[in-house]
Structures are given as C-alpha cells and as structure tokens.
C-alpha cells in the first residue's frame, strides 16, 4: 500500500508539472505584450520595456518557466499586475474563504446526496425514488449561477432570512454553500443509487438475505459498505467541480475567494494572478484525489492486505 501511495505521489507531481507547463505556455502565447496591455494605450514605450525586463518577460519562455517553477516551490507566484501585491499573499487570504465555502458545500452535498441516494435505492421505482431522482437530475441540470440567483432572490431579497452577499458570519455561507453543493448533491445521489442497485444484484446480497437480514439491514450493513468505494472516488472528483463552481458562486455572492480572484485576474489581464490561482486550485484538486485514493485503499480489504 505504501508503494501504491508513493507511485501515485510521483504521478501527481508529474501531472502538476504538466499542468503548470500547459497553463504557463498558454498564457504566454496570448498575442501582444502583457505589460503594454496592462499599462494601457498611453504608456511610455521605454517604461514598458523596463517593466518587461524587470518581470523577466524578455527571456526565452523555458527560462521564464524554470524561474516560475523555482519561485512557486518557494511559495512565490510573482506579483499581481493589477493589484500590485504578491500573488501568494492574495491567494492566502482568499483561499481560506474558498476552502470554507467548498467544505460547507461538500458537507451539504455529501449528506444530502447519500441520504437521497439510499432512500431512492431502498425502493426502486417507488415514490421516493422518482421524487429524489427528479430533484437530483434538476440539481445536475441547473447552472450554478441560476441556483445562486434564485436563492438570493427568494431567501435574501424576498424573505430577508439571510444576507444577500458577504460572509460575515455562518449565515452568510448558507446560501452560497447550498447553491454550490446542490449540483454535487445531485451527482452523488445518482451515483449512490445506481451503485447500490448494482450491488443489490450481487450474490452476497442474497446470502445476507438468506441469513435473515431485513431489506433495510441488507442495504445498510452490506450494500452501503460496498457502495462507499466508488462513492468516495466520486466525492473527490466532485471536489474538483466544487472548486469550478466556486468561481461562479463567489462572483454571485461577492465572496473574496480564489475563484473571484481568477475572474478579477481575467478582467485585469493579470497573468501572474490567473496563473497562480489556476495552479493553486489544481494543486488542491490533486491533493484531494490523492487523499481519496488513500482512503479507498484503506477501506478496500482487497487492496489493503496485499503488501
């Protein structure tokens, strides 16, 4: 198992380097000098050239890349053009908010998704099944910004129950977390249901029923344990889409998070900031997948025992 983890760690590093290279190259092939774009039409040519040299943008791309990577390893992602502050500093403050938002959303999505999935699978084609699956599919089919705006409109604007935007206390997180988790809850409940239904066809389910387990007992003590394995993988993947969705949610609810930073970076044509946010988010996703893989290994005795 340790070997497995080491192998995956190695793979993750390669993937991360690949991601860095790809994003780096892509942002460098944008036509025009980024400094000129940033400083506007009336900037002095000499100033632009000085800035370009200062930022190392006159060097060949591969040297820029090596510089960037060595910097990033030390936690230095360069300085934001538009906000004039170090990217790592900006991300440091924003990341806390994004992480909180994502965790709240994940908690909501997992709890709701698993509960709905199990109750739907318990009675295939029953009322709960149709209801929950209909709602789940709607969850999967609604754009996040729509959910977010709808929640804002109903619960903040009309009912005044919760703040429209800002995250001054836990109440501020409620709407964004629900908006963000809604979609994932749908995916998770659908997966939980289909996995459970598959597992309910397995021979060992008959064995369990033959022992005298009730339908509910079979579902909880035998089927769910086994369904957990694919569901955990899915949850990790969902974490990635949560971070995707955070871009939108943070924009709608004006939360200062990584996603909003990325949107600001694009608006300000701020390459270091965009690069930093994209890379950092990817790092978080990769770490999440790694954690899920390890958890999978721990939960599945077929892998665990083979040393």
């Amino acid at each position: 198992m340790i070997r497995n983890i080491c192998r995956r760690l190695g793979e993750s590093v390669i993937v991360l380097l690949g991601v860095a290279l790809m994003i780096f190259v892509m942002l460098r092939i944008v036509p025009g000098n980024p400094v000129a774009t940033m400083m506007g039409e009336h900037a002095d040519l000499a100033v632009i050239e000085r800035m370009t040299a200062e930022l190392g943008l006159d060097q060949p791309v591969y040297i820029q890349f090596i510089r960037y990577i060595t910097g990033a390893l030390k936690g230095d992602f360069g300085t934001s053009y538009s906000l004039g502050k170090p990217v790592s500093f900006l991300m440091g403050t924003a990341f806390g908010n994004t992480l909180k938002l994502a965790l709240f959303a994940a908690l909501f999505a997992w709890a709701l998704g698993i509960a709905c999935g199990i109750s739907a699978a318990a009675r295939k084609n029953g009322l709960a099944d149709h209801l929950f699956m209909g709602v789940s599919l709607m969850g999967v089919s609604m754009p996040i910004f729509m959910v977010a705006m709808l929640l804002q409109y109903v619960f903040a604007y009309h009912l005044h129950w919760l703040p429209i935007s800002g995250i001054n206390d836990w109440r501020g997180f409620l709407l964004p977390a629900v908006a963000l988790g809604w979609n994932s809850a749908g995916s998770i409940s659908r997966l939980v249901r289909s996995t459970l239904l598959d597992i309910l066809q397995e021979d060992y389910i008959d064995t369990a029923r033959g022992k005298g387990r009730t339908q509910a007992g079979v579902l909880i003590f035998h089927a769910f344990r086994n369904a957990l394995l694919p569901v955990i993988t899915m949850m990790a993947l969902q974490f990635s889409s949560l971070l995707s969705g955070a871009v939108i949610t943070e924009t709608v609810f004006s939360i200062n998070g990584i996603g909003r930073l990325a949107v600001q970076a694009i608006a300000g044509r701020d390459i270091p900031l965009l690069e930093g946010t994209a890379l950092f988010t990817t790092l978080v996703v990769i770490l999440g997948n790694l954690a899920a893989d390890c958890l999978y290994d721990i939960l599945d005795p077929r892998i665990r025992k083979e040393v």
Partner: protein
Amino acid sequence: MFQGKHSDSRIQKIPDAEQDIRLLSQLGEEQTLGKKLGRMAKENPLAVISAAVILVLILGAVFAPVLTPYSYTGMDLRNRLAAPSAAHLFGTDEGGRDILTRLLYGSRISLLTGVVPALLSLVLGTALGILSGFAGGKTDSLIMRLADIMLAIPSMLLAMVIMYTLGGGLGNVFLTLTLVNWAGVARIIRSETLKLKNTEYVEAARVIGVSKSRIMLRHILPNCVPTMIVLFTLNIPSSILTESSLSFLGLGVQAPDASWGLMINAGRQYLYTAPWLCFVPGIAIMVTVLAFNFLGDGLRDVLDPHQNRE
C-alpha cells in the same frame, strides 16, 4: 434410442429457453440498436418526452424568424423592462427587446455550443481513446498523461484560461469546450477498448488471423458505439452549462451573438426589478439540459453494457 439426431431440422426451430431465462433474470440480452431504443421508449416515457422537447427546441431555433413578429436586435426604449404580457409573453429586456424572440434566437447559439463541442470532443476523444487502448505502451501513456493533465484542472478554470488565451467568440467557445471535454471521452473509450480487447471474440478474431486495423474497425469501434451515443448525449448538456457559465462571466460568446448565458449576464443587474430577465433564459437552460440528461440517462439504461442489469 436418442442417438445422433442432432441434425434433425425440426429441432432447430424450437425457440430457445436459455434466452428466456436470461431475459427473466434481467440479464442484458444482446439486442439490436433499434430494439433497444424501442424498449427505452416503452419503459421510459420521460426519455421520449425529453426527445420531443429537444425536437421542439431545434424547430424553434430553426424557425425563429417565422415564429416571432419582433426583431431580435430592434430596440424599443418606451417598452423597457416590461413584465410578461400578451404582447411580450416573457416580457422585454433593458433595451425593450422581446425576450421570447431573444430566447429563440439565443437557442441557436446555445444548442450549437452544446452539440458542436460534444461532437468534436467525441470524435477526438474516441480516436485517441481507441488508439491509446489498442496500441498500449508509450502511445498509451503519452495520451493518458495528457488526459490526466486536462482532467486535473477544474474545468471552469481550464475553460477560463483557454478562453483568455483564445479570446471570446463563438468559434473559440467551440474549441475551448472541445479541449475541456475530450479527455473524459478518451478515458472512457480507452477503458472500453481495453475491455473489448480482452473479450473472447477479439481473441477469436486474432486466432483467425484478422489484421489489427480490421479488428479495431470491425470489432472494437462498433461495440463502442452505444457508449459513444451515451457520452455524446451527456456531453451536450455539460457543454451548454459550461458555456452559459462562461458567458455569465462575460468570457463566452460576444454580442451581438446572444446565448442564454449572455442574456442572464446582461439581466443580472435587474434581478430585483425585472427578475424575468434572468429567470426566463435560466429556465430555458434548465429545461434543455434536463431534456438532454433524461434522454442520455434513458439511452444509458438500455445501451450501456455495464448498466444493463437494471
């Protein structure tokens, strides 16, 4: 007394019990595509309704000019932000333009941004996936590492970075969504190919001496088709959603092209005064995506060899 009568022709015409038993135990029996679609139509009315909804949407997009008396760019400033009424079924926007009209024209863009990238990524992903699975070795690891990289970046950020590089516009939206989606397709087709490659009938073809390219074309590709149909149907809604998100952020299609996402983006500042500006196109997106998802689910239930037990 029962010796050597296996060629008795009377016997061969007796229908076979094994098949019925297989049907009975709900194990997927091999059926032709048409039969499977028929089964879906019978057992899954939602999928049929969804197909009808999609058809209506397509017709609406094609015949938009015939269906509405209003022009989709024509301003009518006296009639700004009018609430839904008989004259304007879904109201008007900040420029006094009829929302239903804009919705119909917008559906052209939104449907295109669903279908075109889904098709392109299907072709690219299938080609690379089959190649990867069948060739193995270095080709395989190269393609799969590339896919890993694409899949590691959260899709929204990847789309944003690519759109930033390419700039806005419809063509670039197509390209971006294709780049975002191909890797997922490639992975699934590759694993399908690996499974098919190890089936007895592919081994049986090898033992007969059938060439590799012929095995890929005759044995692997046709058996990937059900998976491909499902992937295609499910990639359309995901492309529509991503495009709408991009347009919502102002990174997608650019005016004067109007996608539903862009309409919501424009209407956002009137959320509290004229909510229909946001919610009408929002509901349109939802209905469209829902229809494609239902259809995709229905198709998967009957086509996906791994889900056939349901």
